[in-house]
């Protein structure tokens, strides 16, 4: 696969060099002279770009694992810095025993439940606040008072109220996910073009269909952005919540194996946290594309 990527790169870069002689700024005249259609040139350029990307990504990981291996070899201490091979071994062992899937399932289930609760609480309230100026004026100051207190700061109080278990991480995550969802829903509802609402009203659309077919779709892009922010916050908070106040889950696992000084397993679980977080984000992006295909390309970082 790597060799193929390199081949593609070289064959196209030669052609690229020929078409691009006048320099980066002068693509258009060169394309008009040498290529039959501009779209084919564009396709070639895209292909070459993708191939370069792939090649550089491979280089990137080779560099990373190479440096890690070197550092591990020079430290030569399994507890302080296990080598990539040792971590891979731990990962394999944990995978065969099924512990990775167990803990990841515990954490993702908590995540899903928390996001669901946050959605059920925040989105209706967000619609109400977005549509009712007075309600917004009364509730907004209170929300702005509460919002700066991070979810993490609730952990000691939540430990006292809920004890160690499922309720604590779920509570912290609901709290963290609530604010971005609410604020983005309010902003989304408020940003709906009044012409749309007026047009629908002129045509005699009733309240419920108005909400469902006019306001909701128009506010959805903002809500989805809020949902992704909510996920990012919750995923960060669950590790802290589980590490301090849970008998299981990914956050618990990393600290548990640290206490046992089984560093390869600590690193393996950190890797799993990254992979699960990445996969969830990928899922949300796909969801965003399916639900709001018209917003493609207007990505908010």
């Amino acid at each position, binding site marked *: 696969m790597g060799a193929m990527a390199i081949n593609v790169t070289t064959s196209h870069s030669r052609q690229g060099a020929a078409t691009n002689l006048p320099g980066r700024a002068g693509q258009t005249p060169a394309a008009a002279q040498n290529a039959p259609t501009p779209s084919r040139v564009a396709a070639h350029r895209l292909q070459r770009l993708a191939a370069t990307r792939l090649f550089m990504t491979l280089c990137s990981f080779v560099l990373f694992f190479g440096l890690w291996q070197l550092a591990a070899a020079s430290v030569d201490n399994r507890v302080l810095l296990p080598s990539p091979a040792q971590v891979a071994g731990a990962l394999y062992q944990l995978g065969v025993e099924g512990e990775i899937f167990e803990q990841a399932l515990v954490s993702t289930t908590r995540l899903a439940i928390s996001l669901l609760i946050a959605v059920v609480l925040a989105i209706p309230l967000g619609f109400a606040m977005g549509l009712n100026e007075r309600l917004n004026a009364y509730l907004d100051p209170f929300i702005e008072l509460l919002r700066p207190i991070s979810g993490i700061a609730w952990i000691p109080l939540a430990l006292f109220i809920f004890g160690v278990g499922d309720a604590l991480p779920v509570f912290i995550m609901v709290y963290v996910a609530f604010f971005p969802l609410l604020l983005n829903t309010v902003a989304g509802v408020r940003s709906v073009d009044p012409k749309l609402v007026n047009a629908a009203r002129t045509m005699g659309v009733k309240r419920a269909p108005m909400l469902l077919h006019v306001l909701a779709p128009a506010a959805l892009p903002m809500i989805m952005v809020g949902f992704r922010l909510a996920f990012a916050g919750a995923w960060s908070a669950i590790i802290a919540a589980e590490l301090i106040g849970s008998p299981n889950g990914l956050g618990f696992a990393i600290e548990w194996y640290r206490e046992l000084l089984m560093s390869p397993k600590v690193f393996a679980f950190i890797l799993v946290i990254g992979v699960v977080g990445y996969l969830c984000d990928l899922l949300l992006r796909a969801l965003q594309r399916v639900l709001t295909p018209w917003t493609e390309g207007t990505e908010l*970082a």
Partner: protein
Amino acid sequence: MSTIDAHAALSRRSRRAWLAQITLVPLVLVSIWEIWAVLANDPRAPAPTRVIETFIDLVAHGGLILATLQSLGRVVSGFCIALLIGVVLGVLMGSIRWVRNLLDPIVESFRPIAPMAILPIAILWFGTGTPAALSIVAYAAFFPLLLNTVHGVGNVDRKLVLAARTMGVPRWRILTNVVLPASLPSVLLGARLAMGVAWTAIIAAELGVGAKSGGGGSGGIGAMMFVFYAYNIDLNAIVVCMIVVGFVALLIDRLFRLAERRLMPWRI
């Protein structure tokens, strides 16, 4: 936008009505809380009046201010480390394409790893003192700084750079006099976001270190909260700490917004 809304609201209603409006819900909720605490008839139950008493007590004792300053000191030093690495790397990645292509996959792989996931490694490497907390803060603050610098440097108007090059400005001067000022808005936005996550991260780190080292020997307001939970079971003091955490977060955010307005008056 919110300030415009606020001004509009002010012109529509009298100032007093507006004040009543913003204080009504918090006041009602605080009153309910106080009544609940009186009815609960448990001296440990947190109540607004006891929280205020505890606050005065903790401030007079000096412990609260010291712990807050200690946490703030860690946040600022961790932030500075992240600023240095993030901006230098960000400028390199934003202006040189192969560096960006090379490092982007690594950065993106680390991004979904939460700062707290680094805690076990930090404890293994640095023990349970300040360096462990610092490294978590620096890790948390690094990503918003780096990504926003890359974005800012990458989106500098090419015409400006070409114009400077045409006039024979040396590369280094183009960087300091054209690229950096043009990407300042992005970098400052990154700095504000970074400071926000850094403050959350220090609380998490101190809580975690406190919880795992059994006694919160490392200090800071996060460790203080854990001691109040685990040893004194003083819920009023925990609530005081939470309010201080929120207040500092708000203060940091406002300070950075002020800096953005001062440093970039052209953006309003």
